[in-house]
């Protein structure tokens, strides 16, 4: 069985099949709702009447998939290492705040402003992820708990920072928490006419340029995992820590490194909004929840960057279609249900197919190599003293 066929069978086939399953299940849900499944499913693909509307919908679809992708990527790094980093939520929130504050207060030459800000964000996320890593390595505290606790704690931490040090000095003390506006040179540029080549109108707002960063990070992670020593070590100690340790890959070190990388990527999740849209961190409008949906995206994408990309696009598509569904009297909750149903059916279908595949492999193994041929074993003569 070639690698390619393995990927095909374990990767795409399940996704397609599962989507069909999911669609059927959703149809049933919609029936119960009293909505007409068909019109609803059509509404999913309703991008609006005017060209402008369609362009905008495309934009929000693409934009929406970026943070989901980054978050999913962050989660998957930990997952590849057998670490369950629930903490992406907290990591990207604090990272978004610190990056916003940095970009608002520190003056840098134009060509440096954006890259440095991004680095600051990543570093913050990494540092916040370092806490659970250290606690796990030094005290053996389970990372699931620590990251959950740290997610809750980050809220208060941000509140404190936004009241004190990071608060926009220009704000009246009764105004709600917000950093000063990000300096112009740190504003992340976008694409004015991203869908022109599709013959579409220009959206009312440029498409977020952070998409490039996301793709870049995705490629780096993909290559890094599959083609470098570090990536191999990471996967090895993920799939069998003891064997990895015996072969020289220390678990503790890998845990710390994996969490650092995971946190660093998490640090990117909030930046499209902070640098691209809001140009600042507003306590009331900074979007939350990507950390959790990222877990689902990572699992749906089977922890592979490409899969995560597809999963993120799918999730973003569903999020985008929430309002369209409301046009046909389908409540937005259906979107959540859809995402749950899809994740569950994808993993189930995938699991079933994977078993099939392994059996095929065994069969092939046996076919290629029928029982051992008779071969004279190299024999030693008169054992030295060893006689029973």
């Amino acid at each position, binding site marked *: 069985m070639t690698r390619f066929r393995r990927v095909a069978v374990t990767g795409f086939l399940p996704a397609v099949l599962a989507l069909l399953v999911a669609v059927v299940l959703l149809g049933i*849900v919609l029936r*119960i*709702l*009293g909505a007409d499944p068909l019109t609803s499913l059509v509404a999913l693909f309703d991008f609006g009447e005017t060209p402008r509307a369609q362009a905008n919908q495309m934009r929000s679809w693409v934009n929406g998939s970026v943070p989901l992708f980054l978050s999913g990527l962050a989660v998957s790094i930990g997952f590849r290492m057998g670490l*369950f980093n*629930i903490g992406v939520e907290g990591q990207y929130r604090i990272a978004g705040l610190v990056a916003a504050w940095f970009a608002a207060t520190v003056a840098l030459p134009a060509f440096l402003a954006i890259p440095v800000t991004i680095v600051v964000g990543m570093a913050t996320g990494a540092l916040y992820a370092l806490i659970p890593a250290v*606690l796990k390595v030094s*005290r*053996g*505290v*389970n990372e*699931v*708990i*620590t990251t*959950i*606790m*740290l997610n*809750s*704690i980050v*809220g*208060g*931490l941000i*509140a*404190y920072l936004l*009241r004190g040090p990071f608060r926009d000095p220009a704000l009246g003390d009764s105004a709600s928490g917000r950093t000063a506006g990000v300096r112009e040179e740190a504003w992340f540029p976008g694409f004015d006419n991203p869908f022109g080549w599709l013959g579409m109108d220009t959206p009312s707002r440029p498409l977020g340029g952070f998409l490039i960063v996301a793709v870049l990070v995705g490629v780096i992670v993909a290559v890094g995992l599959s083609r470098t020593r570090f990536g191999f070590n990471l996967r090895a100690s993920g799939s069998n820590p003891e064997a990895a340790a015996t072969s020289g890959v220390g678990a503790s070190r890998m845990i710390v490194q994996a969490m650092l990388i995971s946190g660093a990527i998490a640090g990117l999740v909030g930046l499209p909004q902070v640098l691209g849209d809001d140009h600042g961190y507003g306590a009331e409008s900074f979007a939350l929840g990507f950390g959790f949906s990222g*877990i*689902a995206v990572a*699992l749906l994408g089977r922890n592979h960057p490409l899969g995560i990309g597809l999963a993120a696009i799918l999730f973003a598509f569903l999020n985008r279609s929430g309002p369209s569904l409301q046009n046909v009297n389908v*409540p*937005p*909750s*259906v*979107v*959540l*249900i*859809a*995402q*749950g*149903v899809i*994740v*569950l059916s994808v*993993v*189930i279908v995938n*699991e*079933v197919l994977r*078993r099939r595949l392994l059996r095929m492999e065994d069969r092939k193994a046996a076919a290629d190599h029928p029982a051992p041929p008779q071969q004279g074993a190299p024999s030693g003569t008169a054992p030295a003293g060893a006689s029973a």
Partner: protein
Amino acid sequence: MSARTAPSAPAATHAAALRSRRNRLLLLVGVGFVALSVTRVVSGEGVLTASGTINAMVWLTLPVALAGLGGLVCERAGVVNIGLEGMMMLGVWGAGFAGWRWGPVAALIAALIGGALGGLLHALATVTFGVDHIVSGVAINLLAAGAVRFLSEITFLPATGGGPTQSPPLSGSIPTFDIPVLASGPDLLGKVESTGLPVVGDLAGILRGLLVGITPFELLGVAMFPLTAYLLWRTALGLRLRSAGENPWAAESLGVDVVRMKYLAVVWGGALAGLGGLFLVMFTGSYREGMTNGRGYIGLAAMIFGNWRPGGLAAGASLFGYADAVRLRSQNSLAVLALFIFAAIIVIVLGILWLRRGRRLPGAIFIGIGVAFLLGYIGLDSLPNEVTTLTPYIVTLVVLTVSSQNLRMPKADGLVYRKGEGH
């Protein structure tokens, strides 16, 4: 070769071991209580041991603890369950709906059913289809979040007082009673508590908190712990269930129906999580979206903290509930600040124990931390609201870090089990 010991002796030693374990437990509880009393007296924060606080603690603890207990049952059978949050949501919604339509008892039943359904789904995915446990759990959390909103939209929205995020109030009333003489009528404990005497007053306050405003449902919830522990550790069913979590292939080779055990455990666990949800609804008298507010996860934390044991789990959950109660009941941040003294005493005692065991470094560290807490109490005259609102999380985190972590999770926990594929 192995030591050939007379068969009778070890039994005794085992019993002794258990006894010493229980004794150590009692000692710890004792120290904790005295420390708390001292703290209360020194800081003068009556709220720390006020019966009202303890009573609130019970309500805040039960949902977390029951979710954790659900997780414990699942993981003892080898199924990791981070779908607890979702199962709890289903339980909460069920309780809200049935409670509104038919009253408290129906709410109880619906909560159990709601959670159990979530568990059934998890079992189907993980046991039958061999899906990764965490994957399935996450999916269930997503699914449940959507499902309850969706169900609310088709049931509560049309009803007066209901909406897509909230149910109309429970119908019927929940019977509550106080323990006579002690907690009502002459209310002896109440009198002692009001004296504010060290130790005695605190003890009275704590006891009274546990004895007033009891509902049969609370009793049921609390009873789940000894009951579950009994079932798991004293019955054949429990032994087989746990064997599915320790070494399913061994169990299978002795004719144990591992699949059935796992199904049983996960459905049972889901039902317990749902039961936890019941108390959220009953406490405030109606369903509200987002009520679970991460308690499923916290329950999981409590379970790990408790080393997959009912006793430890209950302790962990209570700690969380107590911290939450204190920060909500206290008029200002001083009560929370006072907890520094409590923490200091505990940590220092632990440090001394380490030293007595000849372990200098940890001992020194612990005592250092303790001193730091004391200085903190003396130095600070108040805590920012950000800190006080986070007390329960910070406390849990600190305790996890200082408490030794030689955990013993079930050996086959989280492994995907396929019949006849053991090695």
